[in-house]
């Protein structure tokens, strides 16, 4: 789905009239000005109702100088693990390898593989094992990390991981159809990542 996103970002702008990057945008408006003006023309005496935009927190502006902290939103389908937390750095397990994100990082969309997400704040490091997901890094130093399942590394049971790894390695060898091979491969990948998370 997002496979072409990085190629699109890397291509030079095809003329100034094409879509501008979010680096050029100021903070998102709190009010929909065209709607308010149109309302005033029709009924100048009644105050315009608020649109959903007025209730939302505006997107922070892209600062011209490098911000000192990264704002991280780490969400799961059932809980919001970190919400607008200011940190120094996060290391995300992207499919292309461990990616460190500092404040002022270029806007990126990264697909995540099963692996360890570490959040660095001063001298504290919090590590979570993520099952897979995406990381959206915006030009205004806000990082949105979404995953289906994430657990602190100390909640993983090493025996179950070893058992699972053996089981799936066996399944991979005995798999026949493409789908079975893919499922077994996924099992091997996830369990090896869990293993390295426990040892590394």
């Amino acid at each position, binding site marked *: 789905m997002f496979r*072409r996103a990085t190629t699109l970002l890397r291509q030079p702008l095809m003329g100034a009239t094409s879509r501008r990057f979010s680096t050029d945008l100021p903070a998102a408006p709190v009010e929909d000005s065209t709607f308010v003006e149109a309302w005033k023309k029709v009924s100048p005496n009644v105050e315009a109702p608020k649109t959903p935009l007025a209730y939302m927190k505006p997107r922070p502006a892209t600062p011209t100088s490098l911000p000192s902290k990264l704002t991280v939103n780490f969400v799961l389908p059932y809980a919001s693990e970190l919400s607008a937390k200011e940190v120094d750095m996060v290391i995300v397990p992207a499919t292309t390898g461990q990616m460190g994100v500092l404040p002022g990082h270029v806007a990126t969309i990264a697909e995540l593989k099963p692996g360890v997400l570490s959040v660095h704040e001063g001298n504290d490091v919090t590590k979570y094992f993520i*099952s897979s997901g995406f990381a959206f890094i915006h030009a205004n130093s806000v990082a949105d990390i979404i995953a289906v399942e994430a657990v602190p590394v100390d909640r993983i*049971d090493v025996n179950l991981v070893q058992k699972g790894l053996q089981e799936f390695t066996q399944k991979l060898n005995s798999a026949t159809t493409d789908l079975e091979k*893919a499922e077994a491969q996924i099992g091997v990948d*996830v369990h090896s990542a*869990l293993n390295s998370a426990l040892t590394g």
Partner: protein
Amino acid sequence: MASAGGAAPFWRAAGMTYITYTNICANLVRNCLKEPFKAEAMSREKVHFSLSKWVDGKPEKPTIRSEGSEH
């Protein structure tokens, strides 16, 4: 991520969608948790939905699917 529209990831080449892939990953991770957390996580795995096919603008009898793990 494979750029320039190159080789798809192995699961997509085998006909699996991203959602299926990510749900399988999540289930595998949940199965490897230590005890009290595992029980809580198992409750998150349950899906419960009712499916009905529509024929001629009218819904047929719905089937209820209530399962503990993927598919």
